[in-house]
């Protein structure tokens, strides 16, 4: 990979793990400022609160209200930039999505959904 545009090519792009599983989008980016050195791209951030920070104002309040009401403690997933394997129309990570907190809500809902009949048996739908 060579020169890139951080906003155009990375921010808001789709994150995908090794197996092609979608892991959310790049909601935020952490830079590291070091004296006398160019800022380093440290981490990609995934999370609703990260997104809310970018919208500011009433969206932040909305996010806090939602977290308060649902009791879900907001989690920010930090992906070290070194884990990025390839940047094209999507960003591929050298990681296993299921293990990261980016899919925490997905796993939490899985437990509820599996109790509903027809949610996980073969019903003409792909297993993928």
């Amino acid at each position, binding site marked *: 990979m060579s020169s890139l545009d951080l906003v155009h090519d990375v921010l808001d*792009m789709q994150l995908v793990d090794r197996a092609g599983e979608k892991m959310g989008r790049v909601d935020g980016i952490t830079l590291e400022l070091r004296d006398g050195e160019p800022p380093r791209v440290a981490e990609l951030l*995934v999370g609703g609160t990260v997104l809310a920070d970018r919208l500011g104002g009433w969206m932040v309040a909305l996010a806090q209200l939602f977290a308060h009401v649902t009791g879900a403690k907001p989690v920010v997933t930090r992906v070290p930039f070194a884990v990025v394997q390839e940047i094209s129309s999507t960003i591929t990570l050298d990681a296993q999505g299921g293990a990261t907190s980016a899919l925490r*809500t997905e796993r939490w809902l899985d437990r509820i959904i599996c109790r509903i009949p027809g*949610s996980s048996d073969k019903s003409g739908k792909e*297993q*993928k």
Partner: protein
Amino acid sequence: MKKFGEIALGVVTSIGGFLEVGSIATSAQAGSEFGFQLGWAVLVGSVALMFLMEMSGRLSAVTTRTFADQLRERFGIRGFLLPLVAVLAVSFLVLSSEIGGVAIALQMATGVGFRVWALPIAFLGWLVLWRGTFGTVEKGAAMLGLVSIVFAIAAAALHPRWSSIAAGLVPSAPAHDRARYWYLALSILGASISPYLYFFYSSGAVEDKWTTEHLSVNRVTASLGNIFGGGLALMGVVVAALVFLPRGIRVERYEQLGMLLTPALHHPGFVFFLATLGITCFGTTLEITLSLAYVLAQGLGWTWSENLRPSRDSRFSTTYTITIFLAAIPILLGADVLKLTNVSMVLTAASLPLSVLPLIVLMNDREVMERHVNGIAGNVALVAIAIMSVVLFVVAVPLQIMGGG
């Protein structure tokens, strides 16, 4: 049969634009108050939707990503937020009125009040989405939707003067009730080019795994779909013009529409009208529920596909489950379906610029579309649609007040 499978996506999407609860009512109102004179609004709506569907389909075939993906990626979360909020709010209202449409069809058929049917309809819709694949929804709704051909049969049975129908396809100013005339034109246009349609079509192109080999299929699907949907909506205007106008009947409550096809086709006319209303509104219910879940999932980067088992894309399947049952509540509480469609029609028109304007940038961005960027015709059409959508946005509220329900 395989050929029909290919264009099913176009048929279903155009049913959602021309033969759902709002469009059937507005076409009947247009015909019963202005005869064939508002035919041009249906024509303009179908041509506009044809272009918007072709473009959102081409966008998905070339990039294998959907319109909502591109909106978030090209314009960032801020550029994505306003269209997202507008589409979710407007589509939810339309979704409620669609469930109301099915409920009213069942009420007219069984005599049991429409409020009773709200939750059973939502449950049946959820069941189809939970168990069925995208193909089931797409081909099932398209096949069943063919019943709406009864509008054409009724129109032919009334022996209309086709030349005066054609004359109605040329825009002309009304002799009376100007505000009402333009309000109905706005409703026809607002209903036919609603954002959830091309968000659905774009997601459908990805679900059907379209690639650049499908660009010609995309053009055929978009045009045939709209000739079907727009053509039958026009037939609805014709039948109302020949049945209601001479008798001085103005459509104010949905129940009046039960008689629309009976003078032409007698008892089958009544049965097939209810079947059409119930089927097309049910198909549109599935379409909008999926569209809402698609836009949210794609915007936030979740796993999404109607072809996956619900447990493989839990956030997506949870979203459409909550959406469809939530949308049934206004009908359960007895909301007036016609009023609901009027409000949603106006808000749809008001939300159009937010999704049409970004499309201009996307369809001309060589990084996105490579050599499949818009040609001159596409850009002229898109700019015309964008201007029309801004005009609709500006006149939507005043017209509703002066010419509304």
